[in-house]
């Protein structure tokens, strides 16, 4: 999708005044964050579990090349094929090559962020291959010719009324007030797509190295249908998703839904070990795993490696006061919210997403919500530093003067006294009887233009201490 992250400010201003968007976001984010808090707080060892989950991801990243080789060997041993892709074009070409070789024309797909990232559906269409999104939210996005605005809930930006209007306009759905009727209508359409599909595609939430197992989680069952009915299954997964063992998986697969949607388990957790075995009555005859780099090795080599530990639960989006107000599209690329503010600059170039690291109050809600305890605020700060490598000389001089004043007691005392004397002359009485400073000249007007600055009191703390508590 088109990268518009550098227009964050402009998009945000519009988003804040989009009444429909604000309604949809209020209904969505508050709900999701509340549910996460409820099911996480019922775990009395939730903090230890977060560290256990974090350890699983970081050990996976530490041993990434070895685990990828182990994974490949195990997938191959079970009759699957592993294909490697350095970038988006190579990833898409692998799928197109498989389709051309096997004459596959119609695909069904379950939800996957990496296929969004590489622009798979558009690439397939250009090669004459149809691909139908089967996750309800992704299907809505697809017929609306739009993009998902949330990692887990793709149409969090739309109200029920908008979706109804879309279905009536594009699919001739009869009018209904009920979300259940709308869902049943789409079920009927997508049923046919599963049955006539030549191949099914999925992403992958986890890759378990020790057995070569690809895991996907879905609530709707579309992932299970897409990978059970068609004769070919192609999974496209980022290389960072590898975890070492089934014990690691058991922890992660339970923390993921708790963090994402407040469920104790996702309805369908599907684990694939290659194609159908000879004695099995159904399932794909061929199984392909496309492992995608597309910038991940660069992140791995940078000081932001930890960003690769993300399990895409979306908890940081729901918890973020900025995301809650501007929604996902404002972030201008595939990954929105706090984790997107890190991934987009790292994957697409910092200069192409310069406003994103600043689209945060650094309140820390994202880190607190993260099931693998990724230090998102710290990485946002480092990205800000990267984006401003050379600082304003006036600012530098100011900071030096500040440091000098604060490390010399006499000067500090004198400064305090001077400030209170100045306050008695220029301070103003506010409506509530308190005293505040008037609008200050540059560069201090950056503060007083938008906020009050209280007047300095007539006596400093040191003077008060001497008078009241000193011996």
């Amino acid at each position, binding site marked *: 999708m088109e990268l518009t992250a550098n227009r964050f400010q402009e998009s945000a201003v519009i988003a804040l005044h989009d009444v429909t968007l604000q309604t949809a976001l209020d*209904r969505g984010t508050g709900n999701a964050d509340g549910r996460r808090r409820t099911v996480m707080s*019922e775990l009395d*060892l939730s903090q230890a*579990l977060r560290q*256990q989950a974090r*350890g699983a991801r*970081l*050990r996976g*990243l*530490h041993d*990434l*090349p070895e685990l*990828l080789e182990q994974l490949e060997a195990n997938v191959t041993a079970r009759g699957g094929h592993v294909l*490697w892709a*350095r970038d988006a074009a*190579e990833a898409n070409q*692998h799928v197109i090559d498989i389709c051309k070789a096997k004459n596959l024309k119609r695909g069904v797909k379950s939800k996957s962020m990496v296929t969004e990232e590489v622009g798979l559906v558009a690439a397939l269409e250009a090669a004459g291959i149809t691909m139908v999104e*089967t*996750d*309800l939210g992704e299907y809505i996005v697809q017929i609306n010719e739009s993009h998902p605005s949330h990692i887990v809930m793709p149409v969090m930006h739309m109200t*029920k009324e908008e979706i109804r209007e879309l279905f009536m306009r594009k699919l001739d759905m009869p009018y209904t007030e009920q*979300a*259940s009727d709308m*869902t049943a209508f789409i*079920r009927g359409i997508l049923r046919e797509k599963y*049955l006539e599909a030549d191949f099914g595609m999925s992403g992958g939430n986890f890759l378990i190295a*020790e*057995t070569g197992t690809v895991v996907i989680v879905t*609530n*709707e*069952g579309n992932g*299970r*249908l897409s990978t*059970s*009915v068609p*004769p070919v299954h192609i999974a496209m997964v980022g290389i960072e998703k590898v975890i070492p063992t*089934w014990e690691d998986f058991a*922890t992660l*697969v*339970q*923390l993921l839904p708790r963090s994402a949607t407040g469920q104790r*388990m996702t*309805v*369908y957790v*599907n*684990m*694939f*070990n290659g*194609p*159908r*075995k000879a*004695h*099995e*009555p*159904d*399932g794909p005859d061929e*199984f392909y795993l496309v492992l995608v*780099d597309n910038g991940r*090795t660069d992140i*791995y080599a940078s000081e932001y490696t930890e960003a690769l530990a993300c399990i895409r639960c979306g908890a940081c989006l729901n918890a973020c006061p900025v995301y809650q107000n501007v929604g996902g599209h404002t972030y201008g690329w595939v990954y929105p919210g706090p984790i997107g503010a890190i991934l987009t600059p790292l994957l697409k170039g910092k200069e192409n997403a310069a406003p994103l690291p600043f689209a945060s109050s650094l309140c820390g809600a994202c880190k607190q919500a993260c099931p693998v305890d990724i230090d998102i605020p710290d990485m946002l700060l480092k990205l800000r530093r990267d984006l401003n490598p050379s600082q304003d000389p006036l600012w530098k001089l100011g900071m030096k003067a500040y440091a000098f004043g604060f490390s010399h007691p006499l000067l500090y005392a004198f400064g305090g006294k001077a400030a209170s004397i100045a306050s008695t002359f220029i301070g103003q009485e506010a409506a509530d009887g308190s005293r505040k400073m008037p609008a200050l000249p540059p560069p201090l007007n950056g503060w007083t233009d938008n906020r009050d600055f209280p007047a300095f009191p007539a006596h400093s703390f040191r003077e008060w201490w001497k008078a009241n508590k000193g011996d």
Partner: protein
Amino acid sequence: MSTTARDAILNKLRAAQRPFENAPPRPRMYIPVANDLEDTSQDALVARFAAEMTNLKGEPQLVTGDDAAREAVISALKAIGTTSILAWDFQHIPVAGLREAIAEAGIDILYPDTTDEYRTQMLATAEAAGASVTGVTAAVAATGTMIVRTGAGRGRIATVLAPVHIAVIEAGQIVARLENWVAAQRANGLSDVLDSANVCFISGPSRTGDIEMELILGVHGPGRVIAIIKQ
């Protein structure tokens, strides 16, 4: 081309490999996520499984003995009013005489098999079935989860295509937590897992919240999951 990409990626990763200073160590013993099961007697596990499943809008039914289990399945099928069902091979469904009883009730049994040239017709017929009947490989009390894994006579389609899924579970198949099931797999060298092309955890009926987070059941998979728990 593919070999080059592989080497390029792996070499780049190896060149950048370094320790994480703040990585938590591998636990000597993993803490189970759902840590609130004190009583792990069979009765308690059955009760917890049923409670969790009810929470998920699944329909657990406790029965004692084969006769009661058979009756429960037949009456559920009659209530649905379907003329055909999808099923696993009945040797994997722990109820004696169930196949005969279903046939006697005038219900056609289809064993979904998409491995031959008739797959298109097979799928069209399978799609029309009003329900499916299967067993399970194991079940997890803490989360109301049924575990199914593929094998001869145990396919995937029978667990997901029909609008109602009836699964027969023996009380002894229920373990306390997911971690207990993983430990059992580890004890046999993960061979069960590796013998199956697909393993699936199923926790309640298919659901979506994509439209304003309003819960809707049965969007793609079964909208009803009935678990007959046989004691």
